[in-house]
């Protein structure tokens, strides 16, 4: 009987602890982990039922070497996934992609620019988070047939320069990191 009582108290304590403590996901968020780049790519893939391809490291180095030095100053930690010739016109129903992204990236990432052009079936989302004295910037661009997800680390001065015109920020980052490279 005492064993049963102990078991009952243990179950009570465990259930109580689970009620009082935040869920595992929330705990990860409070540490500021948020969703990582791979998670963002998976989110795009599952929402639009598409498949992305990463740019090989060598290609990224090639892009860097090919770009004028001034444009690349301040960039680092480039991660790129491209979605070529895929159908982005029939996303999962009931959930807005933008809202879903916001929810998944909170609280570590903050939305900086969100542009949607319904007629052209295009949307561009730019999020950022602080990384020491640098900034991590995540750019997701989705069109009717193509898309890209890019994450870069920017120096403060590069970030400041790009913020002069936030609407062009995604275009500049995309061009600087993906132009001329073939996906894996």
């Amino acid at each position, binding site marked *: 009987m005492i064993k049963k009582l102990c078991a009952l108290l243990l179950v*009570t304590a465990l*259930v109580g602890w689970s009620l009082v403590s935040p869920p595992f996901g929330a705990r990860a968020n409070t540490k500021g982990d948020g969703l990582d780049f791979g998670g963002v790519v998976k989110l795009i893939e599952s929402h639009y039922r598409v498949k992305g391809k990463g740019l090989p490291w060598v290609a990224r180095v090639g892009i860097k070497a090919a770009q004028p030095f001034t444009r690349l100053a301040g960039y680092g930690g480039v991660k790129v996934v491209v979605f070529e010739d895929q159908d982005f016109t029939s996303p999962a129903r009931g959930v*807005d992609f933008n809202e879903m992204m916001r929810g998944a990236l909170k609280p570590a990432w903050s939305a900086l620019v*969100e542009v*949607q052009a*319904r007629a052209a079936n295009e949307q561009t989302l730019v999020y950022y988070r602080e990384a020491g004295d640098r900034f991590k910037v995540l750019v997701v661009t989705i069109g009717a047939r193509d898309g890209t997800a890019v994450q870069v680390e920017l120096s403060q001065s590069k970030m400041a320069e790009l913020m002069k015109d936030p*609407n062009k920020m995604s275009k500049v980052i995309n061009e600087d990191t993906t132009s001329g490279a073939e996906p894996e």
Partner: protein
Amino acid sequence: MKSYLRQSIRLACIALIMLGAFALARGQAASNQATSGQVTGNSGRLMIDDLDRLTSKAAESVNVSLDERLLRIVPKAFSEKDPDERKIKEIIAGLKGVYVRVFEFDAVGAYSDGDVNPIRQQLRAPGWSRIVEVRSRKEDQQVEVYIMNNGDKVDGLAVLAFEPKQLVIVNIVGTIDLEKLSKLEGEFGVPVLEIERDPKPRRK
């Protein structure tokens, strides 16, 4: 022994209910804290997220959010030598946030007063006042400019610009001089609104 067990179960149930209530209360408190930190913590900051529902109706929408963390680094991009850039640096120094929403619609009447009323309601709160002697040089554009006064200081500014097929909301948080607002047009996602002081000011 049976009654002892029954009593233990009853106590365990009470403990669970109390823990549940505590967890709910804590969650509610955390949620309230998050909301108040976002809205009332920044004087001059408007809640404009409700406008996001217009995104699905709009042919094109732009949402730019520059918070204090970002604005702190912006001066690095502007030169001290160029007089215009120096002025922009001075303006930014007093800012805590720039929030812009632009919606362009295919048809006239796609948005209504009802969509904008929640913002107007916030602008009726103490501290906010409308500047009447402001107009837009753009044809078909009606502009409402509001400032949040905190004593002698201006802690925030809101611009509501209406065109038949376009709606623009700009909320600038922090110390801002209306005369210098035009310097921010075209910068940091703030659209060119062509706002100017009315040469024949009216009294409201």
